[in-house]
């Protein structure tokens, strides 16, 4: 292969102000984290509510949650993003449209779109995990709580959810990592997150392999750290006697 390697490229000037290419990666990483965390908050809250709804005896509530999951899980993420970014703003009232498209900076409007998109998309997946977590518990837990005179809300708050969430920490971790990886779709609506900055560096410097290698390392280190962190959370929250956690 006839390639001219240059690992110093990250310290070279981009030709814009006094920036070097490494600055682009740092700012890109910042956006990636900002998108993923905000999206994750939406996903976790909405996903938990929907997950609980799916396990409720009430047919309407579980029907709504099921429909939500089917809709958001069966449409490609990229299509959803384009809907949130291009289509939804056009359905808003005139004033709101102008505010969204012109008063907000392009980075902000792209950020809002992608956070909502990732949050709602991931919520469908979190919902399914919460549901399986609740359903994995022995039925006796529910009946015992009822026998104790707990209301439905109390049963979930004090009996079912504390156990269900502990069970689903490993699959939730993988969704948490997924939202960081999925945040790269933001590059397609012009948000300069890590992947967009990588592509830009590759185009500007013609040092494509160095740029993508650095991006790979950054994503890998980021996700490994998150995995370690979630592993630590899991150990901290472990209840002695549950799930082989007796210590």
């Amino acid at each position, binding site marked *: *292969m*006839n*390639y*001219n*390697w*240059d690992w110093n490229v990250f310290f070279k000037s*981009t*030709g*814009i*102000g006094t920036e070097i290419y490494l600055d682009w990666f740092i700012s890109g990483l910042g956006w990636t984290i900002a998108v993923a965390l905000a999206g994750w908050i939406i996903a976790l809250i909405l996903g938990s509510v929907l997950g609980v709804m799916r396990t409720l005896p009430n047919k309407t509530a579980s029907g709504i949650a099921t429909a939500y999951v089917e809709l958001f899980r069966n449409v490609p993420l990229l299509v959803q993003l384009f809907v949130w970014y*291009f289509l939804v703003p*056009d359905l808003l009232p005139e004033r709101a449209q102008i505010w969204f*498209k*012109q008063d907000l*900076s*392009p*980075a902000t*409007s*792209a950020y809002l779109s992608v956070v909502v998109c990732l949050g709602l998309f991931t919520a469908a997946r979190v919902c399914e995990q919460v549901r399986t977590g609740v359903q994995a518990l022995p039925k006796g837990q529910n009946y015992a709580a009822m026998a104790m005179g707990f209301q439905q809300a109390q049963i979930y708050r004090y009996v079912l959810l504390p156990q269900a969430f502990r069970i689903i920490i490993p699959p939730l971790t993988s969704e948490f990592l997924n939202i960081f990886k999925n945040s790269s779709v933001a*590059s*397609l*609506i*012009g948000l*300069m997150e890590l992947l*967009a900055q990588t*592509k*830009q560096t*590759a*185009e*500007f*410097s*013609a*040092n*494509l*392999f160095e740029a993508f290698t650095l991006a790979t390392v950054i994503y890998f280190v980021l996700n490994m750290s998150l995995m370690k962190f979630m592993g630590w959370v899991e150990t901290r929250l472990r209840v002695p006697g549950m799930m082989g956690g007796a210590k």
Partner: protein
Amino acid sequence: MRFTTRLICTATVGALLAAPAMSAELTGTLKKIKDSGTIVIGHRDASIPFSYLDNNQQPIGYSMDIAHKVVEAVKKDLKMPGLKVQYNLVTSQTRIPLVQNGTVDIECGSTTNNLERQKQVDFSVGIFEIGTRLLTKKTSGIKDFPDLKGKNVVTTAGTTSERLIKAMNAEKQMGMNIISAKDHGESFLMAESGRAVAFMMDDVLLYGEMVKARNPAEWVVTGKPQSFEIYGCMMRKGDPAFKKVVDDAIKATYKSGEINKIYAKWFTSPVPPKNLNLNFQMSDELKGLIKSPTDKSAEQM
């Protein structure tokens, strides 16, 4: 790396000195083409009208016609009338590595010749020259770049326009919000939907977007060109024998005046897939390039 460069230089000089003696000895790309009986041309899917797919998914365009001239010359040079031509789709991200690793022998699309890319590949003599300008609605009141102060401007990610407008924004503190869209179609959508007041890009591509608009009459290409750029075909670095065949073929097309026919076919007549006419008259810069072909980038001139 410096050693390699020196080696290539020495080898090149050596090859030039020894040229008459070893003219029968094939090396590099020409040897690869001779051995495999196939030449692989890299093309784009939507660089209208340079290199794109028609309704039958065949690559066509101005740059492809020039690539075919190159193929004819290679056939003649290698005395291989039955040489097979294979097409390989490339994107702006894959085009350089695919040339370097030997998947593609020559890429003819809308690739700007610049100093960064010259470190990775060799360019043929220029095949087109553009200026970077603005596409805006006639009613926007934008006449030139200074009018963009404090406005939203869109450009396509990874292009020279992106670099120029960002640098201009930083240097002149114009307070523009710059959107980098993923391709020209999406950039235009940003301008059409009112997210940006203007779209900065290569003038010829702006004309291409304009004719595709719902109402082409409400758009105008304006502003003093911020740079001129020369498009070239890309080849593997350090292969003077192949580069000479390519350059000679392109120069011959210029000299014979055939280039005018090719130009008229793609820029001043209706072109597929929608049979739209770009009506893009040949610029003085391109006329100059055709008169005295060069493989230098515009910034080196």
